[in-house]
């Protein structure tokens, strides 16, 4: 099985690959090319990535992007409209509330233990802690480190039944929520993650 993927940054790709290795070890992730900066020309590139990944025999296409300072629901609604109708059925458009780094530190106990950051620090932007801990993009070992971290966090389904996966994902994702409103957001996103898995 080939999982097509198009994302915004290297950390996003590492997380997707870690999830794939955990949940679909028999699958292969095919990353779509992106012409130009990943933040720009999204409308055109999403369309072309769909064609590319379909032509590369992907069974499923995952778009993954950070919402950053925007409301993730609005980002998702606006950008998923750019997926051509004939690829919609095989496409998941996932938007991380804030950014993927929030997901990496979803297991706050692990984050506290390994990265030495406490809950209060997590309430801010975790990007700087993640980059400091795993190294810059120039660090060739960064991919392995992030993948191992994600795999060994509480996001991992211990027994691969759908129910337990859902429970594990919900637990880990709601664990980093900062307030009640965000809890709702993360639960909504976790459903997407489960489907992509």
């Amino acid at each position: 099985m080939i999982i097509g993927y198009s994302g915004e940054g290297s950390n996003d790709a590492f997380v997707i690959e870690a999830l794939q290795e955990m949940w679909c070890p028999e699958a292969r992730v095919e990353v779509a090319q992106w012409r130009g900066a990943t933040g720009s020309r999204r409308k055109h590139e999403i369309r072309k990535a769909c064609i590319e990944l379909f032509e590369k025999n992907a069974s499923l296409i995952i778009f993954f992007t950070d919402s950053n300072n925007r409301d993730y629901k609005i980002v998702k609604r606006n950008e998923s409209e750019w997926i051509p109708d004939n690829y919609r059925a095989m496409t998941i458009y996932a938007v991380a509330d804030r950014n993927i780094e929030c997901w990496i530190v979803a297991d706050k106990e692990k984050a506290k233990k390994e990265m030495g950051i406490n809950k209060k620090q997590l309430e801010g932007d975790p990007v700087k802690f993640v980059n400091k801990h795993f190294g810059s993009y120039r660090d060739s070992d960064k991919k392995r480190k992030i993948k191992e971290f994600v795999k060994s966090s509480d996001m991992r389904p211990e027994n691969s039944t759908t129910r337990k996966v859902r429970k594990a994902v919900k637990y880990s994702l709601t664990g980093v929520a900062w307030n009640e409103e965000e809890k709702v957001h993360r639960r909504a996103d976790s459903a997407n993650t489960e489907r992509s898995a």
Partner: protein
Amino acid sequence: MIKKLRIQNCLSFKDLTIRFSRLNVLVGENASGKSNLCHILQFLSLSPMVGDLSEAFLRAAGANAMFNHIDIDPEKNNSHFNVECVIPHNGEKLLYTYDLEIKRGGNRLIGTELSVVREKLTLRKKTKKEEVILFENLDGLATILREKSSTKRRPDYITEKIYNNRTMLSEVIDSEEYISANLFKRFLSTIFHFDPMLEHLKDMTFYPSVFFIECRGKNLFYSINQIKNDKYQEYNNANSSGTAIASKTKSNRKDTNELWEGFIERIRLLDENICDIELNEEALRQNITIPVFTNGKGNRYGIDSLSSGTLRAMGILVASIRAEKIRMTIGVTPTVSIEEPENGIHVGLLRMLYDGFEKSTGQYILTTHSPYLIDLFEDNLDGVKCFKKVNNETKLIKLDKKRIKNILEEMPLGEMHFRGILGK
């Protein structure tokens, strides 16, 4: 024009058959075998000219290339080449098939010892069905057809012993007796690979033994000077004969002027200052080529005022004009392979280069990584050859034209290449 080439067990090719159009573009990732194909074509071109096979391979592919030979199939020492060509001559289309099998022997100081195992040249005229064996060479023992004394009922073959470190083709002389074999030899000698290097393009030394702008752009300005002055005699000088075929197709002064004007016109698209190029005659007498450029105001300036991109484009334009010149001079349409012609040239001018190749009568084999250059082949999908390296072996990926035409509605051809879906 080369119609088909089969390569077995050489460089990165285990067994590859490729059919060519008039305009071809070789695409693929780095180290997928694009340049290797050009090197093999150049080897085939040089083998009858240089004589010694090892020397020809060395000049075409470099000293280390033979080590790749070992990589591809260590059990086999022999390489096999099969070329099918169509050469129009005297209003007739001649179909040649040249078969060459060579054997790798011991190592030399530089490169590897190569010898001929088997060599055969056959000719079939499009109007006739039968095939004529022009010569056959088995391990140094060759039988050659003497065409002049042959009759329809009794072909006149003579037997000769030749050194097996050179091909029979290199021994064919330019005379009426071997006119068909010699025509093919002439065609092979017109194949050349152009991989321009800036330092060679700027090199002011004139190398009398180097044909045109072979060797990565040496003798560029000498070639330009010859286009201008209609003194295009290198081929004949180098071959010291050139009577049987060349005398029938003399170049025409009017055509030459048109070529020169077309050249300057296209150069002015790159650099509008250039109105004329001439060589310092005093320096030329001492085998030094010092180009002097003249702008619209009549001011003269030197090569250092030229941008490197303009210089490269000049080399490529000369390569395309050279093809036309050769056709006019010796009546054979040449095959030219050019390594990444897009380098250093503004993307907007690639169309101009492509048009130059299209208008010229030669056959072109371009290698490229530029999606913009690939885009220009949208109407010529037969000319797009997509290479892929699988387990260290170059494979030619067959293009699904129907599928590509459907995707063309969504994205250009070059982008398909960029996204890796061109030769899926």
